[in-house]
């Protein structure tokens, strides 16, 4: 591991102050993405500001029709939380499908959402459930938060504090795991929300996106048959050694149908 300076923040406020004074510093949460990135010399921050241990970031609760998940909640905590399982079982299920047990014991929702890996799972849920990303500076709607490949609306020094998920009527996630890494080759999150049906796709394109044609097709009933022939623009889909564009496009359709099957109680 290359040279670095480590700072353990005593509070979110102190971390925010430190970031404001040190523009080249970076937050450290679970470290499951950032530490490998440093080892690969893909980033060279002056300081790592650790917020992974802060209890103020680990709260999980339901309040006013919303599920609030602290940015520091680990994947394992979300997967096994009785509160999450009751409020949005699909979100608990998604967290339990991330990586492997060791990764889930360290990795956090805030780190995953901030990182916005195109194959990450949480962005599909945040987008599919029309969640709000609450930061130290403002509240950002999911539709504005994710801006493509590893890019988000976060400004320098802005810290995600929690994610607020409006409770859906029902929701389901289906993911095709990359057999080695566990990341999503394609993952589809479908939710029936107060604002209508939302379909969010991860893994296939350069970042999570809403499949609006499918949303329109499902507006009159969450039936797999409604997806037949629905347009899916795959021109910008990832085309790499793991899978080509056409294969990913097909996976998206299959995962969407599986998510619908879960919604109707069929496996």
């Amino acid at each position, binding site marked *: *591991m*290359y*040279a*670095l*300076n*480590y700072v*353990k923040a005593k509070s979110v406020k102190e971390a925010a102050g430190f970031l404001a004074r040190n523009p080249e510093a970076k937050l*450290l949460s679970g*470290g*499951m993405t950032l*530490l*490998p990135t440093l*080892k690969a010399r893909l980033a060279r921050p002056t300081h*790592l500001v*650790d917020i*992974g*241990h802060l209890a103020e970031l680990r709260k999980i609760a339901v309040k006013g029709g919303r599920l609030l998940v602290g940015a520091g909640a680990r994947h*394992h905590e979300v997967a096994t939380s009785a509160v999450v399982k009751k409020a949005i079982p699909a979100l608990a299920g998604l967290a339990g499908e991330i*990586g*492997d*047990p*060791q*990764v889930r*014991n*360290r990795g956090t929702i805030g780190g995953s959402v901030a990182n916005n890996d195109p194959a990450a799972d949480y962005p599909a849920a945040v987008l599919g459930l029309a969640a709000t990303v609450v930061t130290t500076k403002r509240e950002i709607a999911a539709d504005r938060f994710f801006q493509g490949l590893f890019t988000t609306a976060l400004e320098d020094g802005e810290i995600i504090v929690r994610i607020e998920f409006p409770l859906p009527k029902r929701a389901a996630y289906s993911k095709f795991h990359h057999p*080695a*890494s*566990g990341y999503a080759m394609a993952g589809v999150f479908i939710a029936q929300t107060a604002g209508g049906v939302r379909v969010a796709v991860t893994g296939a394109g350069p970042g999570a996106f809403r499949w609006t044609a499918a949303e329109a097709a499902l507006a009159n009933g969450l039936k797999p048959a409604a997806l037949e022939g629905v347009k899916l623009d795959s021109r910008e889909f990832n085309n790499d050694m793991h899978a080509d564009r056409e294969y990913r496009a097909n996976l998206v359709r299959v995962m969407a149908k599986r998510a619908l099957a879960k919604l109707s109680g069929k496996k």
Partner: protein
Amino acid sequence: MNMAKVTIKVNGKNHTKTVEDRTLLVDFLRDELKLTGTHVGCDTSQCGCCTVHVNGRAVKSCTMLAAQANGASVVTIEGMAKKDKLHPIQRAFSECHGLQCGFCTPGMIMATAGLLKDNPNPTDAEIYKGLEGNLCRCTGYINIVKAVKMSARLLRGGKR
């Protein structure tokens, strides 16, 4: 480069060392404490050879800084046996031939301990999923799965 004092309880005993901030937990264990049972297979968070428990949860110690574990309680493979008596999971791996070269075994055993804590009686599918973070290049996993099943029986107080 920054150095800092780090105190970590390892296998029940507190150790305080002054280390560089970049020190990984696995390097703290291997280089500072000479606990070389925890292995480094990939150094890229893939293989699970470096698995130890931090505050009761299995983690990959190549992907955690010693500074992040400051104040925590860590259990390594060296902390599993009681004097000359193997831990039931070690016994099961030995009896089931759950290893060939043995390089992955410390990590497999620590991951198994983590799995069985959450799920004392896993099915085959749950074992595959529970050991997803650990790679073995020798065994083909069949005897590892057998060893996990025997471990579960032994830990539940049953017979081999």
